[in-house]
């Protein structure tokens, strides 16, 4: 007798589970209310990431092609995996006559970056910030090495180095 009881209980528990899956199946078949999966490139044009999303490190430029980086190399030292390389030179400022560092190339190796945020945390002049782009797929690894400062961009003369 317990044999049939076992079968009955087994079928009952299976039906309990199938009730749940069946409900979702039929409700979503007609209304698509609880559909949770998304086709990947479908919403790519309308997709907006959250402001804090860490996609890549970028350098902000204003409308006159000016950035805030004075090549202090604090971010280079803060980075745990050698993602950032800064190439700079010394140049004489024509106004004040003092020699100062000038940023030539802010090289960012995206392929090595772990998005830990230590560089942006350390930057004393808010020159670098988070970008929300996450489409980094490429056929060649060398495409991931980027130069963050735009060509012919210069240091903003009014920039302030905040003390953090």
């Amino acid at each position, binding site marked *: 007798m317990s044999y049939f009881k076992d079968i009955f209980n087994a079928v009952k*528990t299976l039906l309990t*589970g199938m009730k749940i899956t069946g409900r979702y199946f039929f409700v979503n078949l007609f209304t698509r209310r609880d559909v949770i999966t998304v086709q990947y490139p479908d919403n790519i044009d309308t997709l907006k990431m959250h402001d804090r999303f860490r996609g890549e490190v970028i350098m902000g430029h204003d409308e006159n092609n000016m950035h805030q980086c004075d090549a202090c190399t604090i971010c280079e030292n803060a980075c745990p995996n050698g993602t950032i390389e800064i190439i700079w030179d010394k140049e004489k400022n024509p106004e004040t006559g003092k020699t100062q560092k000038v940023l030539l190339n802010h090289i960012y190796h995206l392929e090595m970056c772990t998005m830990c945020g230590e560089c942006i945390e350390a930057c004393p002049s808010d020159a670098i910030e*988070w970008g929300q782009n996450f489409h980094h797929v490429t056929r060649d690894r060398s495409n991931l090495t980027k130069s963050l400062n735009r060509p012919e961009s210069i240091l903003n003369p009014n920039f302030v180095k905040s003390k953090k």
Partner: protein
Amino acid sequence: MENQMENQEFLADKIRTQEYQLNMGPQHPATHGVMRMILQLDGEEIKNVEPVLGYIHRSIEKMCEKSSYKQIIHLTDRLDYLSSHMNNEAVTLLVENALGIEVNDRIKIIRTIIAELTRMASHQLWWGVMGMDTGALTTFMYAFRDRELINEIMEETCGARLTMNYNIIGGLRYDIHDNFVKRVKEFIVHFKEKLPEYDNLLSNNVIFRKRTEGVGIMTKEQVIAYGMNGPTARASGFECDIRKKLPYSAYGMVDFEEVLRTEGDAFARYKVRIDEMWQSMNIIEQLIDKIPEDDFRMKTKPIIKLPKGDFLQRVETARGDFGVYAMSDGGKNPTRFKFRSPSFANLHGLNKMSENTKIGDLVVNFSTIDVVVPDIDR
């Protein structure tokens, strides 16, 4: 008929049976990562399980010795990636305790809420994978439906979905997002409705019950002897919750239950984690309205140097007791940094658990001790 009997006896004398070895992994879907196990088998019965480690060893402890204390935090994300927030918390608490920084209640409470959300996300993923290992593919999608909501909260507040990196020494990287409280409350309402579905889909399912009940029994003495911890050990009745024993962050302020079971089999280990999700929701509900207005970051020196000496900090991750040990000579980097990972300790029990069981039970046992392979190979 008689002839046949004679024939069989003759064959039994003639054919020798012997134990043999079989490799499981390193690329096996049921091993949750790159994990190789050498099985000593007698027919289908397991005589011995020998895990082989080192396939994804990244020498993180050595890397920590070269890094400053701020840089170490992001490396701990890569150990047990499913409880990354608690791993980060362990390092930050260690440094804060060593330097004597007392963080305010706001930081403590936010850290605790995020830790509990992470614990739930981890258990949800485990539940989905547990179903997959026992042959029910549906559970994976249902678990990810609910986990997605937590990931969304994390993405909005911490900036990343899995390796959050939200803790820094002396506080939090950002303040909580304006929507954080609202979204967490919405999630709790949603998940309270959906968690009974987990029971109906899997816990009460007769096939699942037959596969887990009475499988891989560990007694309390064995669990202690093998150094197991976390939900795996609590299923055998061993009280080992660090949140209760050595309360850190805001766990001293809340009233919650340490989930204990006494059966010690695979189903008990399963049930402990399901009940822990209820307890996590209980903790979040108590704290979510109590976040005080305050700074989200304490003032620290730009270069952090620990005083000379040894320091230890233990936290409870989703897998158990995670320990961080640092030896400092007073400089910027630690001279020795050691992680005591819960998955590695739990793996010791696998051999005892799977003694004289079938290969199918090994998969269940391996799934219920809930290992994360990067946590074993550091």
